């Protein structure tokens, strides 16, 4: 599905991502973890096309996508959410999700202006599909409320619905549990598993260890831009290097 090969990213003198390679297998849930500043979000931005890598190759569904514009990568079947939720001011929840159907519909400028009969059916499909997703995420009652005025957890759901509306092959989730309490986090965990069961491969960046350990098939650990471990959750939990960067070293023992 997704393959990173020897990715480097420099910001001036800062080596933000250093020689990172890994693969995401189709149908799996993979997590990227690491302390603050480890380069997780940078890595996400490289994959989604918001940044171009300084060197290295990123392959998605068999095509090299490094340096490609985000909207073209999105059209190939990659959807994402953002760490600090990015919704569209002035649009309702339903409309926001309908934007997600953009890559799966085609009516152009003139068709829109003339409101041609040929576009009516497409519009209805877009609306119906968006509504289904709002129902799936249990926020259908807020369909006609401006998305940015919803509660935090609901905004997360709108963003998730927008990403799912794209019918992606790969879904990138940037800290989906940030700012949620333990009940909501458990809810998100169930949702992510469900998304995987729908046949969508998931790559997530997360701080919340319980979430990651519960649902991931495999985990990549980053520290200071370098990959220091990649394994199944159980092995990662026992990896001394990972324990060291997360819990810190015992000064006296060292």
């Amino acid at each position: 599905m997704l393959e990173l090969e020897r990715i480097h990213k420099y910001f001036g003198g800062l080596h933000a991502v250093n020689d990172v390679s890994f693969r995401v297998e189709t149908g799996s849930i993979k997590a990227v973890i690491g302390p603050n500043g480890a380069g997780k979000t940078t890595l996400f931005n490289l994959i989604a096309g918001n940044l171009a890598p300084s060197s290295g190759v990123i392959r998605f569904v068999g095509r090299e996508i490094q340096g490609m514009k985000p909207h073209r990568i999105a059209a190939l079947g990659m959807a994402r959410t953002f760490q600090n939720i990015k919704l569209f001011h002035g649009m309702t929840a339903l409309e926001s999700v309908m934007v997600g159907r953009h890559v799966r519909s085609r009516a152009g400028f003139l068709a829109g202006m003339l409101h041609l009969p040929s576009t009516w059916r497409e519009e209805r499909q877009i609306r119906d599909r968006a509504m289904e997703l709002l129902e799936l995420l249990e926020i259908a009652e807020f369909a006609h409320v401006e998305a940015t005025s919803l509660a935090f957890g609901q905004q997360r759901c709108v963003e998730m619905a927008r990403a799912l509306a794209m019918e992606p092959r790969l879904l990138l989730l940037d800290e989906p549990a940030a700012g949620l309490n333990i009940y909501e986090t458990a809810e998100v965990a169930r949702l992510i598993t469900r998304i995987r069961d729908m046949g969508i491969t998931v790559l997530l960046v997360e701080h919340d260890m319980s979430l990651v350990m519960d649902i991931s098939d495999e985990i990549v650990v980053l520290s200071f831009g370098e990959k220091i471990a990649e394994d199944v959750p159980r092995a990662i939990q026992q990896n001394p290097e990972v324990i060291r960067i997360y819990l810190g070293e015992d000064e006296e023992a060292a």
Partner: protein
Amino acid sequence: MRYTKSRAILCLVALVIVTQLLTRITGTSYYLTQLTMSAYYALVVIGLTVLMGYAGQISIGHAGFFAIGGYLSAALTTHNLIPLAGSPLVQFLGRLGVLVRGQDIYGEQLLTVTPWAACLAAILVAALIAFLLGIPVLKLKGHYLAMATLGFGTIIYRIALASDYFGEADGISEVPGFTLLPGVAGLPPLVVNGDFDSRVQNYYIAWGVLIIGMVLLLNLIDSRVGRALRSIHGSEEAAEAAGVDTARCKLQVFVLSAVYAALAGVLLTHYNGGLGPSEASVMKSVRYVALVAVGGMANLWGALVMGAGLTFLSLRGVFGSFDDAVFGAILILVMLFAPDGILSLRLNGLRTCLKRESTDR
């Protein structure tokens, strides 16, 4: 949604007709002249609203596109091509059938481009310039985009003011009427001109064009592309991630709004029989921006009502010699007290009424 939209359009059509009947009954037909001009200016304002309010891209250069439309159609339909009649280009145009012979007021032979061809040429040129300008300029954001479009407006103004072809400070006058449709089956022809007798006809042409333009934009806003535009305004990054080609969308809507401005320029020039460089001035661009803001930025109806209403008052001379000052003051006051537009102050009440009604249904 659709239902309220067509109802609002019907209300507007009714209002336009009632206004004309009122001026007839009260013997105030002279108002029709300014009402006609207001409709054309409002056409610029609604086009700019889609660019600014919905797509979130500012332009302080739209008087430039208006002037490109007006000046090109004026120059092409007035400059005599007889001295150049031998040149291959003029002969080629003659064979295409886009030239027309006539006489000027002194009885001199005239050979000029037909208004239809001139109109199409003017709009195409405006669209092309918008396209070429938009590619680099729309990469800029906020203040930088405002400055760049301001620069464009200034260039067009200076070109109009400095070139002999466009009449320098005098502008171009004696622009002929624009026959939109020839008279068929006993019906009179549809002509855009300033003749006293065709004042009513021109009033309806202008408002007809404005209403059609309005319907097209309302449709656009509710369509797939319209949602994409609004998403760019909300968050360009998220719009890209959702697969919206933001650069292309912004460019398309920039060209569209330029075409609206150019069309308004063409029609108003034929209606007035001429235009001067003040139409290209930066103050005009600022006025369009102010009218979009007064209308409520992302509000086509507000833009139409305020664009036509305030322009009408301005053309009637209500603001006297403080005209530009009034628009500047309006811009400041709106930004301070009603950033969602003047209509929003009362519309909020109206909206709650509507909501109640729709839940009743």
